[in-house]
């Protein structure tokens, strides 16, 4: 039996359980519509403004960083899988199997260092940084 059919079956179960619970709840729960109930919760205050707020640019920054780094790890996985076999076989030297990965990680690290130093992963700016007049965002 194919592994993926089993996984698909679990996905089905994973979907059916929540749906079942929702169905049960639908049968059990009361429904008493009332307007003020549906107001969004803002610690008891009357809500002001919408939710389309402008939030910290850093959220985008880390998202972009993640996008790149995460996918780069995908390229490392195949290497990690074959690493042991390659090391144990005498066909290739250690440098040949280790070198490219080291280079790859080194370049990634240069990228991280650059992002770090340029404040891409810095959540908030200190007053001193603000005073330096840079509007990096």
């Amino acid at each position, binding site marked *: 039996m194919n592994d993926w059919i089993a996984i698909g079956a679990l996905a089905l179960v994973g979907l059916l359980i929540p749906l079942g619970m929702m169905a049960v709840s639908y049968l059990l729960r009361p429904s008493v519509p009332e307007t003020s109930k549906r107001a969004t919760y803002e610690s008891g205050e009357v809500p002001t403004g919408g939710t389309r707020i402008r939030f910290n640019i850093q959220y985008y920054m880390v998202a972009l960083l993640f996008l790149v780094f995460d996918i780069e790890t995908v390229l490392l996985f195949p290497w990690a899988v074959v690493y042991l076999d390659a090391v144990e076989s005498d066909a290739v030297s250690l440098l040949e199997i280790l070198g490219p990965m080291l280079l790859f990680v080194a*370049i990634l690290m*240069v*990228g991280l*260092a*650059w992002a*770090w*130093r*340029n*404040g891409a992963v810095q959540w908030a700016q200190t007053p001193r940084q603000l005073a330096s007049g*840079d509007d*990096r965002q």
Partner: protein
Amino acid sequence: MAVLELPEWAALAPALIMVATALALFVFDSVSPRSTNRSLLAGTAAGGALASLAVAVWYTAAGVGTPTIDGGRGEIEPIHGLVVDQLALYFMIVVAIVTALIAVASYDYLAGHTYQAEYYSLVMLAASGMSLMAAANSLVTIFIALELASLPSYALVAILKDNRGSVEAGLKYFLIGALSSAIFLYGISLVYGATGHLYLADIAAVLEAGDADGFGGLLGLGILMLIGGFAYKTASVPFHFWAPEAYEGAPAPISAFLSSASKAAGFVIAFRVFTTAFPLEATQELIGIDWTIAFVILAIATMTIGNFAAATQTNVKRMLAYSSIGHAGYALIGLAGLTADGGDLVMGAAMMHLLVYGFMNTGAFLFVALAEHWGVGRTFEDYNGLSAQAPVACAALVVFMFSLAGVPPFAGFWSKYFLFTGAISIGTTAMLAVAAALVVNSALSLYYYSRLVKAVLIEDPLSDRGALDQPTGLYAALIVAAVMTVALLAGFGPIAEAATDAAAAALA
């Protein structure tokens, strides 16, 4: 012959130097962020490009990658998928030249700009990608190198982030670029489907052995999509429409970079893919049509559309952008003229044109950069009478314009003439039509190029403008480009030889 024996990977040195320079700049920017030490940054970038240029020239002179006497192909393949032969070295030289000019010119253009180090490192990264494109001989490496060249370019076009034109240009460049790379990739996947290989020589072997029979449709569609990808990178019809907007909005040195180096790099992969992977006869047997026909059509359409559109522009940068499309059409002749048993002359001519273009077009855009630096405006009228205040720069502009038009005594004359004779010597009706289109378009192009010359030299300024400064870097780059455009006229022999040899080796 080289006295010292270098390891094999050193053959890639021109590209590796670019990569190393880009990383060095990133490291520098990490150590000291927001540095505005312009001399150091521009110097590093220019130094890297020049080192790459020197190594590439040295290799070419030393005969690296030339076919051996005993009939071997002689190319060096340090990594499977990256090959160093004459074709690769030739285009590495083109890329390095343009990069060096850009780096020097940006020294002044970027004065007061926030992202100095980023700018230079992105330029160097893109240049690395272009250098690698020259060496790539597998669809995998080609695609990766293509993206390595494209991604920094997108950012570079939009780097003036408070300038709406620049951002708009970046967006359009990016959108069309993303679309075309998707199409290109799909084309690759179809070719892979038809042949089971991504390595160009293997694809050819499969095609020639007839092992891909029955996959003609897939292959044909794949090739068509690949052509689409090249068309984008070289700003040819039908993916040319990003070019005017992107070149116009981008910082002028970047426009120069894209329209010269990026275009050349696009052509080198087109040359390599079509000469290596799709042997004419075998492919024709399989898909039922000669793929050069596509390039004949594209060449004529591209040069005609580019030139006619250029003739109607009022904005100088946009005119240059359209003219750059026209020149892509000229270079496409190199592919249109390939035949089963030859075509090295015409392909060589296209290569020569791209090298010369690297100087004259870069120079022309750098003049625009200078005008932007002065803040004189963007239309022909705004340029009126500049020569009274800046005679040397305007003399350089005259050189570029007439060279672009293909008028003697400038190097552009030779390359256009070689293209013309190359097309004629093939002798088919299609190629004669191409040659005729070349002549007609060249004559047309003289009209709008001389319009700029006329504006700068002959017209009187619309309004008084103050004294114009003479930024060292821009002037230096401009003058070097102009001198080379003239000097190449005399020194065309080695270039013609290198180009035709490389083409012959690639076609062999």
